[in-house]
Every structure is written in structure tokens, then in C-alpha cells.
């Protein structure tokens, strides 16, 4: 299946040249590239003060006292406040999600009695300059009583759950006394009698993939500009967030304000990646604005982002696969243990990633028996948040490592064993619950291996090996569930759109989505333009203003192409109907006889009998007006609202305990060639290939950018980036010198191949896009490095793949191969 024979209702509705499917140049780029973006700190406010946050130097400590008086006495300081003082003015942070019996810490945005990680806020100041605010932090006296730091899962439980899944636990210390232990969530389900299948299976293979802690590093860290109007009791906040509407809900609740009195604005957001999906420190400057009566600016220093920002990955996974002699996957058993840091549900939303990891470990492969156990453990490290991939990369690494392990054990070609097990018929209900609505998994894998010219590569690999060089080839498949919809959380499953044609014939779309660099201003305009017969340049997309836009859910979980686009499509469809109805009346024909395009509506076959959209719009709104142009219409203007939901989400657990949180499923396949220097452990990545299918592609250039971007983030995380802590819970990577983001020279050539298998559940056939490269890249790199080191007989299942660790694999290898000089 490809773009041309895919059905797409838009195609038939928009005349000869639909904008959907074209690489329309991004509307937002001109302003962003010419320095005219409006990021949070760009806001100009009257007479601002600057907020700085004092953060705990201890991973775990009781706060004995906080004395802000010396800071308060400094000449430029407007206000200095401790956690205990702040607690008189706000509530604890409400949980962003509350389901599956998860434990929720009761904490304030500024700690009151105890700190749970190095970097937790303990006091805040506002002062006339940023310099003065930071100077004042040094004048706040905090007395701590250090507690034993829980720096690992072993510290948290006394034993690793792989060795004793149900304890007994003997924690080094308990983070939240009221829990009595350090497990935030323990979730299990099984289906298809997996233990019996394992007992009788001809082959059982297992592996223990594990990933270190890393996360997104957006160019714009967290930032807030807050203005409180005491007379009106209104709060206006610019926030660098992916969730303006939920931010407003949570901030209003925390500060005890009426929600309609709070406005959250998010114009240009300098990077989201899932990282900006919580309200935590953001509420501090808001409180400071309310208490000081001054406009407050807060811009998080990079080091604070690294020490307190939402972190990700940091898990150990034990996966077993039961296989038949011919390589058929019969059953999966998995046990996923996540080191969440201090919290994955209240301060930020990472816990769900572990549940996703435990749900999707069959990946794009067919299996009927499945058993999962997920344990989310808290430790004294920064909170666990959402980050591009959100557990799908965990699932992918598990199944792909399992496939490679099985292929080696059964003596089957690694590509062949994958082809043998890939799902081929759709819709497909996974054993774990989700419904994969459509896909072309097998073709994607073929596309990648053909583009790579795998036989030629294998030959080259052998030649290199004869010269003592270690070239490795990795090939994997991946599933990219999108549009995550978590019940009982701020990450729910709907999106709103309000579409209107204005009297001048141009369109305005209010979308509940949020722009975070993913190009929604352009892609939503393309869709609207096709529906309304306009040019995308005549469509204004508005988001990120809770005063203007109906309640919507923002940008997370690659949901835009599923929820956001569908809502706009449907709302615009209703406006289209009314537009054609009005025009038909004016031209005295039937609406079915009309065609619409390029800003005009005309009678099919009689192009001279035409009206401009502007003429129709003017007629509807003003002269003569709706009585004449849309008689009998319930809502007789060119405006419509739509809230889009869909049937493939089910959040009531079934009898097996399963839920369906992702309605659409993109997919892909990836390949890579690496060369490993076995003496130094250095890895040279020669080239990557990625074949990708996100259903109907609205804007190929944007999709291409998303795939490259996510692949580079996946590569950075696997190879370079690391939030590293010592055994006292102290962060070792406080600057970007140590937290190594991938640079342009570290990125190999990446060849992207596209395939379009429309989703039957969205009106345009779209599926989410944006996370694929993050999902598949860790697995394909580990696979290739293992392949390069095949003669050493090592298993490569842990990240990061830095020279020291790769060298250690070789040094400690069961077999030693001859090394050339």
C-alpha cells in the first residue's frame, strides 16, 4: 500500500490539488529563524522581578530549619520564602495521574519537612535582578539532618526484585513514611496461560536489557512569567509547557484561584519532548507574583534542569521468550523494574512509561500468551517524567534483544525470525490488549534490508573481519503506538477544535493542541485549507491561550495527528457543509453541485458561475446575514466546534486487567552499520536506515524532520547522554560538558524511507509520528554492536554504549578473539 492508492476523504473533497500530502513550508519557521519567536522569557512585562529557587544539596534529608531573614534583608530582595511559609498559601501538588492503585506522594512545590532528591526546592526569592536573586540564595540558611540516601533499586528494596519479586524488602530508608516501602506501583497481568506454554516450549531464551537514566534537554528550560492582578484576582502566566489547559487547572487548584481567573499562555515553546507535561516548580513564580504584587520572571538555569527536571529510562528488564523449533514466538514473560527517582506520578508523569513498557513488549510480533509484572520503585533522585519514547523504547529493546537472542540460539537468520513472527493481519488485538488497527510491518522490514543491501553488507563484514576489524550490522522492527490516552489523568483521550471562517473569507482554527516545534501551525492549516477550499496561508491556527481556545489537552504522546488533526478535520467539515449550503442558496443550485477550491466555490462544470469564499462569508455574517443565507440552521454562522474521541481506547480493565491506552499504531524498521574498535571500545556509526509508516502523511517534510530528530535523540541517549549519580544520590552530570548531547559530527547519515498505511480509525488515515527514532534506535544500536562483537560471545544489553563500557564487554568476554595491531 502506498500514498496513491490509500483512501483519503480529503482527496475527494478538495478539488484538484490537496495541500494534505505536500511539504508545505512551515509557517512558523520565518519567525523562529529570524529571532521573532515569542518564548516565555521574551515576554515584556512592566517592572518585573526575578525568581530564583534554592535547591537541596542533599539527596535525602530532613529540613530542620530554613531562615530567610538574611536574604530578606538584602537591598534588592523583594521577597524570600521558605517551604513552610509557602505552605500557608497553597496546596500540595495534585497528582497528574491516579490509577492502578499507585501511591501518590503528598508534597509541596517547595519542600516543607523533608527533601527527596538533590535539587528539590527548599526556598525561593524574588529580587530586582537575576544577579541579586541568585546572590540572595547564598544568604538563606537551611539546616538539614541528612538521611541515608536511597540511590538505587537495591538501596530502595534491600534486594533486587529479579531475585525476590515479592520481597521481603529491607529498604535503606523509606522516602515516604506513610507508604511503609518504596514501591509506587506494582502492576501485573497475564493472559493465555504463559507458564504452561513456557513449560512445554522447545526453546526458552531470556535477556536482561537495561537502560541508564537520561532525558530530553530542551533548549528552553522551564520558564514562567507570572502577573497577578489583586483587584480582579486574576493570574496571567506565560509557561513553557506542553499542556496549557491542564496547567491552568492544576495551578488554579494549587493557588486556590478560580479557574476562569487564570490564563495560561504558551506561544513558542522551545522544546517539549514530553518533558513539559507537569506542574511542579512552575507554580513557585506564580505564588511569588501573587505574594509580591509584582510581575515575576523565572527562567530555570540549565544545571537546575539537569538536577531537577523530569528524567527518564533508568530501568532493568528481565524478558523471557518461549519459541518453537521453527522460530515461532509462543509466549513472553517479562518483569520490568523502573528506578523512578523520587516520584513518577505527582511531580511528573513518568510512571506511565513503565506501564507502557510492560504492555507493548510483544512489539509488532504475534504472540498469544503474555505475562507482565511492572514495579515502579522510588529512590532519592530527580522525578521520573515523560520523554519521547515513553516506554515504547523499553518494550522495543526487550523484544528486539529477545529476537536476536532467539535467532542466535536457534540458528535462524535474525531478519528471517522477525519476518516469521511479524503481525500480518489487521486489525490485530495484541495479547496485552491494544488493537493495532493497521500496518505493513513485513514490507517495512523488506524496505530497510533492501535499502541497506544486506547481502553486500554481510560480505563486507566478513572481509573486514578477515582484516581483524569488527563491523556489526543491526536490523530491527518497531511499533510506534501513538496518541496515548491515560484515564484518571491529565493525559486523557480527546481533543477539541473550533473552526471558523471570518467575514473576510479567511479561516481561524482554535486547537487544544500545543505547538512545541512539531509544526502544527502548518499541518493543521493544510487540513483546514483542503476542507474549506482555502490556501494554508489564509488559515490562522491559534493554540496555547486558555482564554481563547476551548479546553483541550495539548501536545504529548504523539497525539496531534490522531486527535488534533481529526478534531480540526471534523470541525472544518461542518463549516464546509454550512459554507456550501450558503453558497448553494446564493447561486440557486444544490450544494452537491458545487465545487470548492482556491478560495472559490463554483458550479461543477460551469466555472463561471462562482463566488469567492469571502463573498459567501460576508453574506453569511453581515449582508444580508444568516437569516437569508443559512435559514433553518441551528448554528447559522461559519463556525463549528468538535471534540474528537475514538473507540479504540478502553480504560476499564478487562477480566485480565488489560487496558487500551493507544488507539493508533505507527511502525517502522531500522538498520545500522557500526564498527567497533575492540581495543578502545570506540564505536563508529557508519550509516542508519529507517523505514517509517505513520499512516497518511500530511506534510512529508515535517514527518521527515520528526523521524530524524527522534533518531538523533535515540542515538544520543544510547551513546552519550547520561544523568549519572553517585552512591549518595549526588548528581555527577550538572553541566552539558558532562551530560553529552549528540553533536552534528556524531550523527551518521540517516536514510529515511516512507510507507503509508492509513489508519482506519482517523478520518484522514493519520497516525502519530515523532517518537519512532527514539523507540527503535537503542535496539538497533545494541543489536549491531553485539553483531560486531559476535566472535567474543558477548551479550550487549545495557546502555550507555560508551567506550569504557564497550571495552569492558570485550575485556570480560567469555571468548577472546585475536586482535590486530
Amino acid at each position, binding site marked *: 500500500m502506498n500514498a496513491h492508492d490509500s483512501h483519503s476523504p480529503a482527496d475527494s473533497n478538495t478539488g484538484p490539488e490537496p495541500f494534505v500530502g505536500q511539504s508545505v513550508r512551515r509557517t512558523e519557521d520565518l519567525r523562529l529563524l529570524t529571532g521573532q519567536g515569542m518564548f516565555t522569557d521574551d515576554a515584556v512585562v512592566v517592572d518585573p522581578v526575578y525568581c530564583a529557587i534554592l535547591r537541596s544539596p542533599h539527596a535525602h534529608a530532613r529540613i530542620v530549619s530554613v531562615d530567610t531573614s538574611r536574604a530578606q534583608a538584602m537591598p534588592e530582595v523583594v521577597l524570600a520564602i521558605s517551604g513552610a511559609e509557602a505552605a500557608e498559601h497553597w496546596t500540595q501538588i495534585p497528582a497528574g495521574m491516579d490509577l492502578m492503585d499507585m501511591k501518590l506522594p503528598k508534597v509541596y512545590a517547595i519542600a516543607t519537612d523533608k527533601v527527596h532528591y538533590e535539587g528539590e526546592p527548599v526556598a525561593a526569592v524574588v529580587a530586582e535582578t537575576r*544577579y541579586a536573586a541568585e546572590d540572595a540564595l547564598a544568604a538563606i540558611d537551611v539546616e538539614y539532618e541528612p538521611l541515608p540516601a536511597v540511590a538505587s533499586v537495591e538501596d530502595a528494596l534491600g534486594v533486587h526484585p529479579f531475585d525476590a519479586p515479592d520481597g521481603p524488602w529491607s529498604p535503606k530508608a523509606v522516602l515516604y513514611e506513610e507508604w511503609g516501602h518504596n514501591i509506587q506501583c506494582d502492576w501485573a497481568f497475564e493472559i493465555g496461560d504463559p507458564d504452561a506454554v513456557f513449560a512445554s516450549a522447545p526453546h526458552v531464551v531470556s535477556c536482561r536489557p537495561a537502560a541508564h537514566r537520561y532525558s530530553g534537554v530542551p533548549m528552553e528550560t522551564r520558564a514562567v512569567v507570572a502577573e497577578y492582578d489583586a483587584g480582579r484576582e486574576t493570574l496571567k502566566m506565560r509557561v513553557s509547557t506542553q499542556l496549557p489547559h491542564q496547567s491552568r487547572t492544576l495551578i488554579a487548584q494549587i493557588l486556590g484561584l478560580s479557574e476562569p481567573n487564570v490564563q495560561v499562555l504558551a506561544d513558542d515553546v522551545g522544546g517539549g519532548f514530553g518533558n513539559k507535561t507537569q506542574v511542579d516548580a512552575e507554580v513557585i513564580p506564580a505564588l511569588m507574583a501573587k505574594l509580591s504584587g509584582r510581575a515575576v520572571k523565572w527562567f530555570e538555569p540549565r544545571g537546575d534542569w539537569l538536577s531537577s527536571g523530569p528524567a527518564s529510562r533508568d530501568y532493568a528488564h528481565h524478558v523471557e521468550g518461549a519459541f518453537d523449533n521453527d522460530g515461532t514466538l509462543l509466549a513472553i514473560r517479562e518483569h520490568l523494574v523502573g528506578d523512578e527517582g523520587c516520584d513518577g506520578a505527582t511531580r511528573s508523569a513518568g510512571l506511565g512509561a513503565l506501564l507502557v513498557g510492560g504492555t507493548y513488549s510483544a512489539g509488532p510480533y504475534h504472540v498469544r500468551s503474555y505475562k507482565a509484572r511492572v514495579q515502579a520503585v522510588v529512590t532519592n533522585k530527580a522525578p521520573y517524567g515523560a520523554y519521547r519514547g515513553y516506554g515504547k523504547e523499553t518494550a522495543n529493546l526487550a523484544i528486539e534483544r529477545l529476537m536476536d537472542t532467539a535467532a542466535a540460539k536457534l540458528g535462524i537468520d535474525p531478519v528471517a525470525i522477525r519476518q516469521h513472527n511479524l503481525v500480518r493481519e489487521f486489525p490485530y488485538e495484541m495479547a496485552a490488549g491494544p488493537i493495532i488497527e493497521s500496518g505493513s510491518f513485513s514490507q517495512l522490514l523488506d524496505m530497510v534490508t533492501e535499502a541497506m543491501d544486506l547481502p553486500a553488507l554481510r560480505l563486507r563484514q566478513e572481509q573486514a573481519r578477515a582484516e581483524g576489524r569488527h563491523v556489526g550490522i543491526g536490523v530491527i522492527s518497531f511499533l510506534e503506538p501513538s496518541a496515548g490516552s491515560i484515564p484518571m489523568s491529565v493525559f486523557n483521550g480527546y481533543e477539541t477544535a473550533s473552526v471558523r471562517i471570518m467575514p473576510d473569507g479567511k479561516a481561524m482554527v482554535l486547537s487544544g493542541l500545543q505547538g512545541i516545534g512539531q509544526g502544527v501551525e502548518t499541518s493543521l492549516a493544510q487540513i483546514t485549507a483542503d476542507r474549506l477550499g482555502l490556501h494554508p496561508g489564509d488559515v490562522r491556527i491559534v493554540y496555547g491561550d486558555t482564554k481563547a481556545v476551548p479546553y483541550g489537552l495539548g501536545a504529548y504522546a504523539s497525539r496531534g495527528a490522531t486527535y488534533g488533526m481529526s478534531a480540526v478535520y471534523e470541525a472544518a467539515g461542518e463549516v464546509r457543509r454550512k459554507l456550501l449550503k450558503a453558497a448553494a442558496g446564493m447561486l440557486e443550485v444544490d450544494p452537491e453541485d458545487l465545487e470548492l477550491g482556491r478560495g472559490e466555490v463554483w458550479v461543477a462544470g460551469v466555472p463561471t458561475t462562482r463566488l469567492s469564499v469571502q463573498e459567501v462569508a460576508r453574506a453569511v455574517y453581515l449582508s444580508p446575514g444568516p437569516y437569508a443565507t443559512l435559514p433553518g440552521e441551528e448554528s447559522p454562522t461559519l463556525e463549528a466546534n468538535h471534540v474528537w474521541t475514538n473507540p479504540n481506547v478502553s480504560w476499564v480493565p478487562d477480566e485480565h486487567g488489560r487496558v487500551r491506552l493507544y488507539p493508533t499504531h505507527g511502525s517502522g524498521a531500522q538498520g545500522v552499520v557500526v564498527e567497533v574498535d575492540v*581495543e*578502545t571500545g570506540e564505536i563508529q556509526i557508519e550509516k542508519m536506515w529507517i523505514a517509517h509508516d505513520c499512516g497518511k502523511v500530511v506534510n512529508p517534510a515535517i514527518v521527515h524532520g520528526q523521524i530524524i530528530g527522534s533518531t538523533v535523540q535515540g542515538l544520543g541517549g544510547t551513546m*552519550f547522554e547520561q544523568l549519572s549519580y553517585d552512591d549518595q544520590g549526588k548528581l555527577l552530570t550538572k553541566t552539558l560538558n558532562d551530560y553529552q548531547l549528540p*553533536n552534528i*559530527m556524531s550523527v551518521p547519515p540517516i536514510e529515511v524511507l516512507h510507507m503509508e498505511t492509513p489508519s482506519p480509525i482517523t478520518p484522514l488515515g493519520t497516525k502519530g509520528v515523532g517518537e519512532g527514532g527514539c523507540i527503535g534506535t537503542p535496539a538497533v544500536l545494541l543489536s549491531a554492536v553485539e553483531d560486531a562483537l559476535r566472535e567474543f560471545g558477548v551479550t550487549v544489553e545495557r546502555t550507555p554504549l560508551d*567506550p*569504557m563500557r564497550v571495552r569492558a564487554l570485550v575485556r570480560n568476554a567469555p571468548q577472546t578473539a585475536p586482535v590486530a595491531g
Partner: protein
Amino acid sequence: MRTTSFDYTRATSIDEALGALASGAQVLAGGQSLLQSMKLRQASPQHLVDINELDELRAVDLEDGGLRLGALTRIAELCVIAEVAAMFPSLQQAAKLTADVQVRNRATIGGNLCFANPRSNMASTLISLRAEVTVRSDGGSRRLAVEELFSGYLQTVLSSGDLLTDVHLPDPGRDARGAYREISRQPNGVPVVNVAVAVAEGRVTGIGVGGLGVRPLRARLVEEALTHVDVNDPRAVDEAAALLAGDLASTEPLSDMHGSAEYRLEAAVVLLRRLVLATTNERG
């Protein structure tokens, strides 16, 4: 983050700079390390003396068959100066692998040395080239070998009134070669370990190693051993390179998340062996 407040003097002569230094000021050169630590509030100098206007510190002069480089020579300039390319190719290689282009445009050779990062590209390379530095203060001027400049992690033997003014690269000798290699997490990242080797007439004349100890090292034991062995024999070179462990004994080993002490030594020995074999055996 923002710095604490400080006084700022833009020196218009070396004497003015030395005067300010004598009264407790700290040198600001390219600012690529100093401003970072000030913004992180790891350093809070009360007074900075900016030396960027001092043209005397920009000299690039031939000197006794070698080269004199002013302390303000930018790393970016080392990448393009013809004399450096012709006489000291290893220095050019090391410069090209230092940081990114924005940092190289500001970073100076003097600042790089005085920051005393044990993983510095410049330090190990200059050590291999037997380079010396001139240090001036109110009280006069002295010269010392680059390898003697470093006293510990991010520490030099300089005292607060000292200004490093020149780097002297001696005559590289006949049929001179040299090479620099590093292992870094990424191209242009600060290296985990690096090694520079200088060769004249087929014999190794100097070896500098960075990232192994808390200060950059000269590998004297290896240099000495290599004078006795056939540099075309990989096993003999390997054995000599392994003496690096002995050279490291003169200082404390470096160990961090990017490389354990064990890994650093192992990798440095590999780099060293490869460099010696490559530089002594190349002909051209």
C-alpha cells in the same frame, strides 16, 4: 545562572595587567572556562583583568628554529597558521579536535594551559613537543617546561600575580613528525584520554598524555624505553607503552563517569602504541 559581581579592568599594557594581577585580579582571556565557572558560581573572583587588547600576546614568531606563540593565540588560529601546520602538525590536529568552532574562536592557548584541565588537548601535545612557557609577574620573568606547569587537578604552579605570556615550541628536529589522538565521547568533546607523540629522524622525542592522571603527563619512562627498542616491532613498542603505568605513578590517577582509571590507562596504552607505530614508520 549569573555571576557574582566583580570589578573589571581592560588592560592596555602588559605592565597594567601585571599591576592589576599583583593586587589580586584574575586574568580573563577567552573566557571559555573562566566564565563558565563564574556563572556556575564555582569561582567568584572579585576583580578580572581582561588581556584581550594586548597585542604583544598575539605574536606568532619564528624563534631558534622553532616557534613562539603569544598566550592569546586562539585555538582557531592554531588550526590555520601555516607554520604550525608545517612544523607542528600534531598541534594542529589537537587544535582541530578542541571543542567546537565557536569555542575555538575565543579560547586561547594560554587560557587552555592555565585552566589546567588534565584532559586538555593542548597540554599533552605541547608536552610532547617539549614546549616551554614564559611567565611574567611584577617581579620579573621566568621560563618553565609545560609539563612543570601543572600541580594538580585544575591547578598550576602559577601564583596569583603571574601572567603567562608566551609558549615556545623548540626546533622539532630533522624529519620531524608528530601526531595527536584522543578518545572522546564525541568528536569535539573534551577527551577521555589523549596522547601526543613527537618524532624526529624516526626516533620518539616526546610523549604527552592527557586524561590519565589528575594533571597532564610526560611519559618519560616510555620515552626512555623507546630509545632502546626497535620502533618497527609492535610487541616491543607495546611493552614500552605499557610503562605508562609507571609514569602515572608520579601523580594521582583520574577516574570519573567517562572513564575509570583502569580504562584510561588501558586506552592510553593502545593509543600510544598505535601512534608510535604510525609516526615512526611513516615515510614522506
